């Protein structure tokens, strides 16, 4: 939906003043305007200030060598320390982004339930790159003398170990399930290949039909050519000729 530029309205914010004026200055003195129900309410709880341009919250250090202010009244970018760590982790492990992840929070206090001193596994949270980043942050802030790379290396190795455990657990669970009679159907790859094969078969049927059609047209053209040009085709073996034509559809037959 295309909208035009928003129109500023002045009446909504000034509804109290408008009604006060109406009540006080009457054109017809005997026509009393009754006080609205909301009048005392809006009087005691006035609307907030709008259309002022504040100095926005500052999230970066001002450049001391800048000679004039730039974008003084525009909101600034929010930058956190974890961003770099996150970027580095996901650059090194891009396929971690392909794993499903829970992004819904329960009550907003989910982060308080995690204790990153205890390792990467946290209650109510799947193992993911975010665990690595948070644990790394914790180590960087709480372990004396640890560097960013050192913390990354340490947490990375913990992460690999846990992922390996997960893999093994999954494989064993699968084996156990298969042993007691479960079957898991086709994998996504197999389903994809099957669909692709179906499409190929469809195309093959269509192509065969098309070839037959073209060949039929060509055959019809040549038979009629023969019929008009050479009246004594009765001597020839038409069936063998047609077979020859079909066998070499692209090669024009040599005239007699």
């Amino acid at each position: 939906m295309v909208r035009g530029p928003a129109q500023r309205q002045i009446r909504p914010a000034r509804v109290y003043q408008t009604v006060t004026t109406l009540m006080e200055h009457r054109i017809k003195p005997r026509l009393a305007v009754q006080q609205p129900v909301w009048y005392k309410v809006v009087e005691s709880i006035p609307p907030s200030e709008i259309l002022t341009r504040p100095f926005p919250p500052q999230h970066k250090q001002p450049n001391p060598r800048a000679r004039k202010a730039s974008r003084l009244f525009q909101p600034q970018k929010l930058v956190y320390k974890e961003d770099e760590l996150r970027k580095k982790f996901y650059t090194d492990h891009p396929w971690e982004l392909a794993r499903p992840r829970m992004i819904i929070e329960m009550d907003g206090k989910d982060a308080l339930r995690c204790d990153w001193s205890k390792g990467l596994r946290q209650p109510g949270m799947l193992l993911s790159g975010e665990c690595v980043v948070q644990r790394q942050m914790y180590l960087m802030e709480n372990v004396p003398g640890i560097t960013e790379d050192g913390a990354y290396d340490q947490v990375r190795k913990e992460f690999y170990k846990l992922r390996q455990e997960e893999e093994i657990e999954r494989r064993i669970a699968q084996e156990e399930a298969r042993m007691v009679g479960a079957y898991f159907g086709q994998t996504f790859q197999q389903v994809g290949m099957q669909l692709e094969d179906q499409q190929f078969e469809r195309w093959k049927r269509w192509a065969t039909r098309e070839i037959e059609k073209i060949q039929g047209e060509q055959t019809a053209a040549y038979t009629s050519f023969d019929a008009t040009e050479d009246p004594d085709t009765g001597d020839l073996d038409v069936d063998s000729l047609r077979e020859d034509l079909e066998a070499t559809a692209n090669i024009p037959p040599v005239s007699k």
Partner: protein
Amino acid sequence: MIIREFGVRHGRKVLAAAAPLRRGQQQCLRALSTETSGTPVATADPAVEAALQTNPENPSPVPSLFARDWETAQQLRRNLMPVGTKVEHRYSPNDVFRNPPGPKDVTLELLMASQAHMGHHASVWNPANARYIFGIREGIHIISLEQTAAHLRRAARVVEEVAYHGGLILFVGTRPGQTQIVTQAARLAKACHLFTKWTPGTITNSDKILPGIPVEIVDELDRPVGPAFNQHLMDRRALVPDLVVCLNPLENFTMLRECSQANVPTIGIIDTNTEPTWVTYAIPANDDSLRCLAVIGSVLGRAGEQGQKRRMEDAKNGKVTWETPSEIKQFMEIQQKRARWSKRAAEEEAAATSGGGGPNGQSSTTPPKSSDRSYGRTPSTNRDGTPIFHADEALAELQMEVDLVNAEEDVSPQLRNTPRRGD
């Protein structure tokens, strides 16, 4: 295969242990067992064997299989309940409807978890919202949750006070998915709701759009006053809400414009691309997240509920927090005058028939039929001239509600009168 055989074996045992079987059931069981497995199912248990080989001539009464299965399933469930994974309660979208948070429960964490802080892309912002914006993250504006909480509390106070003063509140949310939010808020605050299109002119052209809408007149305890005001209600104009809460101002510009023309204060949820001057009280929040809207709607609904509760308590203690609308006052004055005139006419008539100045007692016992006849337009309920004047505090209430059942034309929100819903 293994599992199926297991089930058969145990089902056989359970059935045999529960009650002796009849011949037909035996056959069924045998058929079942031979179907599932080629190997013969041995019943080593002598009790089972005995039960299966009961004399078929005198079968004992058998309870229905269905009830017995159900009991078995219940037993199984009771036994297996503590076994296995412990399921914790996680977030569910219906939590906010099962247990709606009130103004006291508004925290920055709750607002953040309900995604109230996410605005729109920085390129589509409305600079009038600059004071509500905390920063830019991944290209979108982040709304300052402190501002959101402050404005939400302010709006909740307004809703509560308007409800306390007996005002008519209307909750509007016309985007898909907002129906439940709007209806719940209206139910809590005893207000009206709208979740379909706002018919343009419902306020400014209400004589044409809403002719003859049903209106109820109630007293300070929200009890209907009765038929005494029927004549007034017949030529009464449609009422205008005293407060409008709009969840999606972008789509409801017409409504907000009409409200401003009719001097109705409005509360609206203002995203970073919305114009904040369209509403009186802005709540800066994400208007695209239904979870956020549900939280805000339930907070406002709870505030209205609190206001209604306070109003009813005060009314029970004899304190009325609102004034009678001027139209009703005027109507009552006219009725009082008419009653006085009819009384005087009756007195004069009585004096004329008795041939002299009658005593006061005689005039008071005069039947009101004569007065009815002489004036013609006096309300029929005015039997002795007194009852209708007790309704000094009468509140006209408009219940604007989209009648889902009767909305056949489906164009305009039908304005009808609904019975007061009890708590």
